[in-house]
């Protein structure tokens, strides 16, 4: 094998290339796709580059405050050919090619990359849920996928369930690399439990059907008399298609008509981009809750909630056991099951020892 080629200044290069022709958003810079290259830059001196397609350099507030050193390069268009050309032209600088998701578009990218840099490394973070894993496991029958996967030096899944499944399906080692959390704002977590309040917190894109916030609100209402000293806080911007947002707003109008007495106990904060302010919210909450119908892989937000000492309540998504350490620091409930979630909330909220033990 050829020796690694170093950049002229002696640094190595880690490049995160998207499957599609789009761009990253500010929040993603503090998710795995941004943290991994940033950590390589910060801790190992890599040049960490994220090529994107955009008319002009997007506004990335986190770039200046939290992940300074990440580099962005603008592609002239959003075609696959352009991304392949970029990889070929920069192959000498790309010692590590990082890919997120198992997408067809990566097949030619990796093929050409390995042609130019057979000694280069490819990290494929599949970050997928079980339906995706099941669908994709059969693609191994296709020669181009077989070649693609065999050219990836590290293949990872973000939760144990999909990792174990893929390990049984594919003739490769599939590693478990959970979506991590980075304390970018250098938040202090001393004396954590003294700051906790009776808050059930969720942080997500609010109102998108996937997150099933209707279930969260209905359940909170159903057990509100059993947990009278508790408040519910939803952080995030209202998201989804226009129709989805309209539907959710209609739901909220109806909800607060029926449960007007809960207006003081339920708070929608909107998006909190300031990581220090967001960390304060996590630190104050005793419980972090996710009521999703499904997740792409392991939810990024769980790492932050666990680090902040929150007790986790999560629907039975593929990563549920990872989120709760198989029940050691949280509880799970069947997806969409209002009765089960009601019982879980009543049980957990009225059991401070359980929260302290789990958090």
């Amino acid at each position, binding site marked *: 094998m050829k020796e690694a080629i170093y950049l002229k200044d002696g640094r190595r290069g880690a490049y995160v290339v998207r499957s599609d022709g789009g761009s990253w958003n500010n929040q993603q810079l503090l998710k795995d796709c941004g943290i991994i290259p940033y950590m390589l830059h910060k801790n190992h001196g890599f040049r960490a580059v994220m090529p994107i397609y955009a008319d002009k350099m997007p506004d990335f507030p986190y770039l200046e405050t939290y992940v300074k050193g990440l580099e962005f390069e603008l592609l002239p268009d959003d075609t696959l050919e352009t991304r392949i050309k970029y990889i070929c032209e920069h192959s000498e600088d790309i010692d590590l090619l990082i890919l997120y998701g198992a997408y067809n578009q990566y097949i030619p990218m990796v093929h050409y990359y390995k042609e130019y840099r057979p000694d280069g490394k490819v990290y494929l973070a599949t970050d997928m849920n079980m339906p995706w894993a099941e669908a994709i496991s059969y693609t191994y029958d296709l020669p181009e996928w077989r070649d693609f996967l065999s050219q990836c030096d590290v293949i990872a899944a973000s939760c144990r369930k999909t990792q174990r499944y893929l390990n*049984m399906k594919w003739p*490769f080692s599939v*590693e478990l690399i959970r979506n991590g959390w980075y304390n970018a704002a250098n938040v202090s977590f001393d004396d954590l439990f003294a700051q906790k309040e009776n808050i059930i917190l969720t942080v997500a894109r609010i109102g998108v059907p996937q997150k099933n916030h209707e279930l969260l609100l209905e359940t909170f209402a159903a057990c509100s008399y059993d947990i009278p000293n508790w408040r519910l806080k939803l952080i995030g911007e209202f998201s989804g298609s226009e129709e989805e947002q309209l539907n959710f707003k209609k739901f909220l109008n109806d909800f607060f008509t029926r449960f007007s007495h809960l207006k003081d106990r339920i708070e929608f904060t909107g998006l909190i981009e300031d990581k220090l302010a967001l960390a304060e919210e996590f630190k104050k909450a005793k419980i972090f809750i996710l009521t999703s119908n499904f997740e792409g892989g392991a939810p990024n937000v769980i790492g932050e909630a666990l680090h902040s000492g929150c007790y986790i309540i999560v629907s039975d998504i593929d990563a549920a056991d990872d989120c709760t350490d198989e029940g050691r620091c949280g509880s799970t409930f069947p997806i969409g099951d209002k009765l089960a979630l009601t019982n879980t909330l009543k049980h957990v909220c009225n059991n401070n020892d359980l929260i302290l033990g789990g958090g």
Partner: protein
Amino acid sequence: MIVLISIGQENGRFIFTDCNDKEHVLLDAVDIFNNRSKISVKRPIQLGNDILLLKDIIFSYLHILNDGTLVSFVRSLALLSILDKLFQKPLNFQFLQIGGWSSFSGCVANVFDLFGNKNHLYCLTNDKISLDISNVSFISDELGTDLLPNSKFSMVFIDVPDAISLSSVSAEVFLSLKDGGSLMFMADLHSIPKFLIDKSQISLINDRVAFVSLPIHSELKDVIFKQTDLGKLKLQKQQVVESIKNLSKIINKLEFLSNDKRNFLLDDTISSIVESEKIIVNIYEELNSSYIKPYFNELKEALIDYRLQDNDNMRKIFFEKILDNFRKVLYEMTYKDDFVLNI
């Protein structure tokens, strides 16, 4: 092909003069033909009538075969080799003939009958033959030699019309022979390695073709077995077993070692487990348990997590994970598969 050489017989000594005019005694039946058999009295062939019958069978058969063809000539050599073995150890002689039923097979069956009912002729053939002879069985060769039992036969004769190379003989044929058994075939002499020529009984038919009787011993079978798919698989499994054994030797010491010593041991162990995982990945489709591969990966992961931990409490948690995954791997390897661990 017509052969110009033949087998001579003088007072019960069967002699083959090879193409270099060198004489080989193929069978010394002087004693037995003169009723001075050294065969145990517990064996059936003792009385004069039996001996006469045996002589009759041999001479008739050799006469029938004396048609000058190479196939007949080789079969004559095979028959005499069988008799030579039978005279030495006439008990439980399991003979495999690879090739169709012929007058040669009938002759062998008759000879076996004289020597006792535990001698048996197996005929590997696709010919549909209906014979009701108690000491003859037919094995279908639809699957070739793949399903031949291990260490079953005292002698195997590959009964084909042309000389074959040694490399064309499947490993399963070698492995089907008992230790001390022999493999007979008409060989392309150039295909036989020198070290085997020195140990074999070679009857030169011409400068290129010979009738070869190759003695099979356990060392040779081991070498051959390691070249089979199954042998390679077992060898790979053994490599994995070694890394697991090494881990088992240190696993209970880890928590009591100094950091430096623990890290040193762990680095070695992790490297070995990583190599073993690569083997597992290569062979996982051959394994009976589909859980060995994921559990092995999780064992590696726990070892790496443990190695990276500075915090004592966290390290204890990861140590428990090492133990948990180690138990899972052991269980799957020994109870769900056939890894031989003896830990």
